[in-house]
């Protein structure tokens, strides 16, 4: 160093280097979304779920009211025609799940929530997991994750024209609104069908790909009721009822896999496939035990629908990716808010059998 005068050219090279570092930092900030307030990020999508009063800390940011179950999945082996996933080979496998209501409010009265859901984890013999989160409507209200965000924004907006504007831009929502208004209710989770709605790809042993959707269809006879009748049963009837019902005997759902024909839309869960599509009954979900969420094994699980075993993959449906990003965000939030979660509050009023 001593005796080596600094040369102008080298200073210029150093300056160029420094400029490259600055540019890389800018590119990093851009990639992180800090320079793009309009970008739909997992953070914004999840924030939009919160009711005007703010989210219920410690709870799932959607489908916040729920109850855990455990049981088994009895696979009859017929699904192996479509997918090489271990869980579809004949056998009996552990199942863990959560019945829930599609609301951000963990204390919402049952009859105020139109959408019911099931989170499910099946574990194959080799330990690989299949997680799913399904709901009871036969189709999704909107076609894209962006439209779902727009729906949340419009429904929480104070602007009286917001919902009108949203419906005009997303006419498929009308079909859902019709279902929400007209479809009968049930008085039990055991009488509801839970549908994947999103299309997935099953890959068979030969590597062939089959676009499918699936449903868990209840074996229990369905007794349709009105929302007024459900209201009369009390705000937490569903959890009390399923606990009593399962204590009296296991409840069953058939896994019905529907195979798309060429040309059926796989990228839009608001569009149902024609009713004559081929289906395969791949086995039975047997729910054997109910546990309260706060002590139960389902609480700290993220039923991310993209946690799939080899033999099942996502399709061109844009929802699973958006859901995976949003569920991770919700999971990160709620696991960091343990102190706000009512572990010990009203521990005796639960529905544990």
């Amino acid at each position, binding site marked *: 160093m001593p005796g080596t005068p600094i040369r102008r050219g080298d200073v210029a090279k150093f300056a160029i280097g420094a400029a490259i570092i600055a540019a890389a930092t800018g590119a990093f900030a851009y990639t992180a979304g800090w320079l793009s307030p309009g970008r739909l990020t*997992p953070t914004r999508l999840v924030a939009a779920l919160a009711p005007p009063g703010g989210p219920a800390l410690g709870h799932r940011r959607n489908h916040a009211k729920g109850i855990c179950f455990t049981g088994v999945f009895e696979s009859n082996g017929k699904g192996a025609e479509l997918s090489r996933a271990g869980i579809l080979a004949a056998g009996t496998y552990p199942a863990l799940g959560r019945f829930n209501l599609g609301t951000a409010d963990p204390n919402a009265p049952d009859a105020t929530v139109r959408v019911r859901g099931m989170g499910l984890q099946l574990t194959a013999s080799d330990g690989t*997991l299949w997680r799913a989160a399904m709901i009871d409507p036969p189709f999704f209200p909107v076609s894209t994750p962006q439209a779902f965000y727009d729906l949340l924004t419009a429904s929480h907006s104070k602007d009286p024209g917001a919902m009108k504007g949203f419906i005009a831009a997303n006419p498929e929502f009308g079909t859902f609104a019709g279902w929400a208004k007209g479809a009968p209710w049930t008085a039990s989770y055991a009488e509801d069908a839970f549908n994947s709605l999103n299309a997935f790809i099953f890959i068979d042993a030969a590597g062939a790909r089959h676009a499918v959707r699936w449903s868990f269809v209840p074996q229990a006879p369905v007794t349709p009721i009105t929302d007024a009748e459900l209201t009369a049963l009390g705000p937490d009837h569903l959890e009390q009822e399923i606990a009593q019902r399962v204590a009296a005997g296991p409840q069953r759902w058939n896994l019905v896999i529907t195979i798309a024909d060429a040309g059926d839309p796989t990228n839009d869960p608001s569009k149902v496939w024609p009713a004559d599509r081929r289906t395969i009954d791949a086995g039975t979900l047997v729910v054997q035990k109910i546990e309260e969420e706060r002590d139960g094994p389902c609480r700290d699980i*993220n039923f991310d629908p993209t946690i799939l075993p*080899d033999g099942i993959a996502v399709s*061109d449906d844009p929802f699973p990716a958006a859901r995976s*990003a*949003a569920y991770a965000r919700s999971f990160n939030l709620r696991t*960091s808010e343990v102190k706000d979660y009512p572990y010990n509050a009203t521990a005796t009023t639960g529905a544990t059998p």
Partner: protein
Amino acid sequence: MTASAMTRNTVTGRSTSATPRFSALQRLLHWLMAVCILAMLFIGVGMNSTVTPKYLPLVETHKTLGFVILLLALIRLAVRLVVGTPPLPADLPPLIKLGAHLSHYGLYALMIGMPLLGWGMLSAGGYPVVLLGHIQLPAILAPSDALHTVLWNAHFYLAFAFFGLIALHVGAALFHGFIRRDGVLESMASVSAPREATRPRK
């Protein structure tokens, strides 16, 4: 660090006639990993700021490349313990030397620590850790809300510390190369160039 410490102690200063350079293997690992790590930082913040379908392949790449980095970093550490490092210029002020050493230890800690934090965070969150869609790794921690939160925060904040440290590191390398012109940049500069081709460290 014994081997490298020895090298530094026995080779005094940089007035040896041979040009002290990192071994070819070290240079190869350095540049290969530099590309991978920069990619990882961008993939990390990119995936966490999108809900588009590219989210899923980005996450999968993040996990897989993260493990590749962990393996390469362990190999690199072993190589360094065996082969050592060329001494820093003798006329470098002691504080700067200390800074150089500490920053290198910091970089090693992050190259090894970040993947372990990622792996631990997923394990504590009850997630399966699957690479390339079908290579299932064991959980290294039992599920725990509290641990998940701690590890998530560590992975998140250390990622930005990593970026900052790299920026500092590159700035220092350019300072050595263009302002001090003391041969430090050349000691790592090229993956393939033979010794003779480089400016001797004086």
